[in-house]
């Protein structure tokens, strides 16, 4: 045994079709010892899990669910590269674990036939044998193992059955011989592959045989450019080989499906027995769940229930209150124990207020993902995507965009990451670019304050509807409608292209696994906390610095002097009325000092500088200043407005801030600063603007380019400005005439 084998665990790749219980099996095998990440440069998520069995350590590499190992894009190339050991970021797996759905072996053996050609020791997990039995399908497992020439272990991953046997089989995988080389392709094709390999050798290119086959089969030319095989003569050689194959009755790329399904038919001959059974419950349920009328009603009720839970004061509100309380407590502790100065201000107003302001949305994000995970795990989400396809196809997208957009209502970052379910690059990009237009939970505080302070309260329909709820819903609608329009424009301009075919598997309905659901929630929640602790932390510190410096106390010297005098008086005062009056004066002075320093800060100066630009929206320098501060993260606006309007940075109690905003006037006049048109203009601006550095960073990561986050920033800022301008003008017209 080599030193490497002793110190490093056995690397085994896990591969299989989507909806075969692959994630459940991965979780069952590796338990909690998992880590996830991204392959550099592509959107494919890499998941590693480790476990020990019979004194051996095994590292499982979970590859994305796939129907085939035919790379047509960088994402699809990853699985092939991992299996062939061509990826520097990943160890070459010593073996492969292929998971098959026992109820649909015809299709599942397709990818297995590709894996077998890689000639790596292989173990098969024959999963969902119980579900197959319900469909009337029984499989002769020993015979299947004999025909395939690899161990086949029957499993029920969701019940943990067969998992231990699978672990033991994997522990002995090093003793397993690689499968026999069986090419399902006709001799003519194999000859062409040999010829092509000769061509590559003569060009000093060393490529595994599997990729040489793919080179011939990949008519899109992706692999040719990926392997950097330039030269017209080489391209001509491939074209000639394809012509010869077409003439011999083995046209490319159809020959692959023909050959592999032929091999599948032969392999399964006499192994799979099918009994006639009544249509499965899933089909009967689908007649209702996907019905154009009943299905749509069920969908609407479910979505309403999800959103009610997310925005309910009773469900999300309680833990949100705890988090607020915790950060208030932390702020208090730090405030009491540090001397006044930049460091205390940085900790209290920058770090604690900034990070706390974001973490407060954690319960809402966890609740939304809890429901999304349940709907996904029980198989409903694919039906929702089916129902939404009718709507989405009108704007040139497919129903697959629905899930990412739904996630974006909690937070656009996981929404952007969820676009990975969309294979078509153009559709994925458009969905990613419109995801930040969905009103995420960070916009809620802005809507709540503006609506409560400036939207008059009217009731309609016997009290069922009121102007506040309608305005709130209207802001969500502004985002959705704009997203639809943007998608349409993108599809017709810079991302023009034919609508790709829409085909998607609908998994059978099943009870959701609590373990899977909780793991998803923890995973998403942790990702959110991580971002709050890094990017939002950094931007909070920057905003704090811009709002704190140059901190020229000379401009408020009289107030500081008076404050010191008040504090001395307070220490000596005994009369309760006097103490109260002094405390009030102390607070007023402190707020005035804070406000004056902010006006003089770099942020305040920037606010004045941009005032001409924000005037057409009905805003003054203070609103402009708060908006600039909110560009890294829109949550920052509440704290900034609080400081600007001499309230101090405390955002716990919104009522006084509302009152202050209501009584604020234009500098040097009695004219109220805020009114309904201004409030609407602020809300529309926040509904449409890309004020979230973390989302832009997520788009950069997913597209691996700066071009798209920059584009998103500019197009959304322009839309926000135009939207705010239009709503301000329209609302002003109606309120002044």
């Amino acid at each position: 045994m080599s030193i490497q084998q002793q110190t490093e665990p056995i690397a085994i790749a896990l591969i299989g079709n989507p909806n075969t219980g692959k994630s459940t099996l991965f979780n069952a095998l590796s338990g909690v010892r998992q880590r996830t990440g991204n392959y550099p440069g592509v959107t494919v998520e890499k998941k590693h899990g480790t476990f020990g069995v019979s004194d051996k350590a095994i590292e499982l590499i979970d590859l994305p669910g796939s129907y085939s190992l035919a790379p047509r894009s960088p994402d699809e190339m990853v699985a092939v590269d991992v299996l062939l050991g061509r990826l520097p970021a990943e160890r070459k797996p010593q073996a492969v674990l292929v998971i098959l759905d026992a109820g649909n072996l015809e299709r599942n053996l397709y990818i297995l036939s590709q894996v077998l050609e890689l000639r790596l020791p292989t173990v098969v997990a024959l999963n969902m044998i119980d579900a197959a039995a319900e469909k009337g399908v029984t499989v002769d497992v020993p015979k299947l193992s004999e025909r395939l020439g690899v161990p086949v272990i029957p499993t029920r991953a969701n019940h943990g059955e067969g998992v231990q046997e699978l672990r033991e089989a994997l522990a002995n995988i090093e003793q397993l011989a690689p499968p026999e080389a069986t090419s399902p392709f006709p001799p003519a094709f194999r000859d062409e592959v040999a010829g092509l390999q000769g061509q590559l050798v003569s060009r000093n290119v060393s490529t595994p045989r599997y990729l040489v086959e793919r080179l011939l089969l990949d008519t899109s030319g992706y692999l040719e450019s990926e392997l950097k095989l330039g030269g017209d003569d080489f391209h001509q050689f491939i074209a000639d080989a394809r012509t010869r194959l077409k003439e011999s009755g083995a046209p490319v790329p159809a020959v692959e499906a023909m050959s592999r399904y032929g091999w599948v038919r032969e392999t399964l001959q006499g192994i799979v027995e099918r009994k006639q059974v009544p249509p499965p419950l899933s089909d009967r349920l689908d007649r209702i769940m996907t019905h154009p009328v009943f299905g749509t009603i069920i969908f609407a009720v479910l979505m309403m229930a999800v959103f009610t839970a997310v925005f309910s004061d009773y469900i999300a509100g309680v833990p949100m209150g705890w988090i607020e309380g915790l950060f208030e407590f932390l702020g208090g502790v730090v405030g009491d124990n540090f001397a006044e100065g930049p460091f205390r201000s940085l900790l209290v107003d920058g770090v604690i207020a900034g990070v706390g302001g974001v973490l407060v949305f954690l319960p809402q994000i966890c609740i939304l993902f809890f429901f999304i995970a349940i709907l996904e795990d029980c198989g409903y989400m694919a039906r929702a995507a089916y129902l939404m396809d009718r709507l989405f196809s009108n704007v040139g997208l497919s129903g697959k965009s629905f899930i990412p957009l739904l996630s974006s209502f909690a937070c656009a970052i996981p929404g952007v990451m969820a676009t990975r379910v969309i294979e078509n690059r153009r559709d994925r990009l458009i969905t990613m670019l419109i995801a930040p237009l969905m009103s995420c939970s960070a916009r809620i505080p802005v809507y709540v304050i503006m609506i409560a302070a400036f939207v008059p309260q009217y009731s309609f329909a016997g009290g069922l509807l009121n102007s506040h709820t309608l305005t709130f819903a209207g802001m969500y609608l502004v985002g959705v409608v704009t997203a639809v329009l943007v998608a349409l424009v993108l599809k017709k301009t810079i991302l023009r292209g034919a609508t790709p075919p829409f085909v998607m598997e609908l998994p059978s309905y099943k009870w959701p696994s609590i373990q899977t659901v909780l793991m998803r929630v923890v995973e998403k929640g942790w990702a959110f906390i991580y971002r709050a602790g890094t990017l939002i932390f950094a931007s909070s510190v920057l905003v704090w610095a811009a709002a704190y410096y140059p901190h020229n106390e000379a401009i408020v010297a009289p107030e500081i002097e008076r404050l010191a005098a008040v504090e001395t008086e307070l220490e000596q005062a005994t009369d309760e009325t006097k103490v109260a009056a002094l405390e009030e004066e102390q607070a007023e002075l402190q707020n005035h000092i804070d406000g004056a320093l902010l006006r003089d800060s770099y942020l305040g100066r920037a606010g004045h500088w941009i005032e001409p630009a924000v005037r057409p929206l009905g805003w003054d320098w203070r609103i402009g200043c708060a908006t600039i501060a909110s560009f890294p993260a829109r949550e920052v606006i509440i704290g900034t407005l609080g400081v600007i309007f001499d309230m101090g940075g405390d955002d716990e109690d919104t009522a006084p801030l509302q009152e202050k905003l209501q009584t604020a006037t234009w500098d040097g006049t009695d004219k109220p600063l805020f009114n309904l048109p201004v409030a609407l203009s602020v809300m529309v601006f926040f509904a449409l603007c890309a004020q979230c550095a973390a989302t832009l960073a997520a788009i950069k990561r997913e597209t691996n380019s700066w071009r798209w986050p920059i584009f998103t920033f500019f197009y959304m800022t322009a839309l926000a400005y135009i939207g705010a301008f239009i709503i301000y003008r329209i609302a002003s017209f109606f309120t002044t005439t």
Partner: protein
Amino acid sequence: MIPLDLLPIGQSAEIAEVLGEQNDVKRLAEMGMRCGAVVQVVQQGSPCIVRVDGCTLCFRECAHLQVFVQPAATFA
């Protein structure tokens, strides 16, 4: 031979021909919608829901991709 969208709910048919751009046709085949597979419509419309072998797929026909089937009464 009839287009898939004309197949009544519940009736079985064999996929006779899939017309379209060759890579799209191959993608469908990889997912199970290949010539010779037996298909049954669960929900009509665009997209429609079909059962192919042991799995349920939803599929939107378009000008570039069409599936023709041979209904059960005639394909035997």
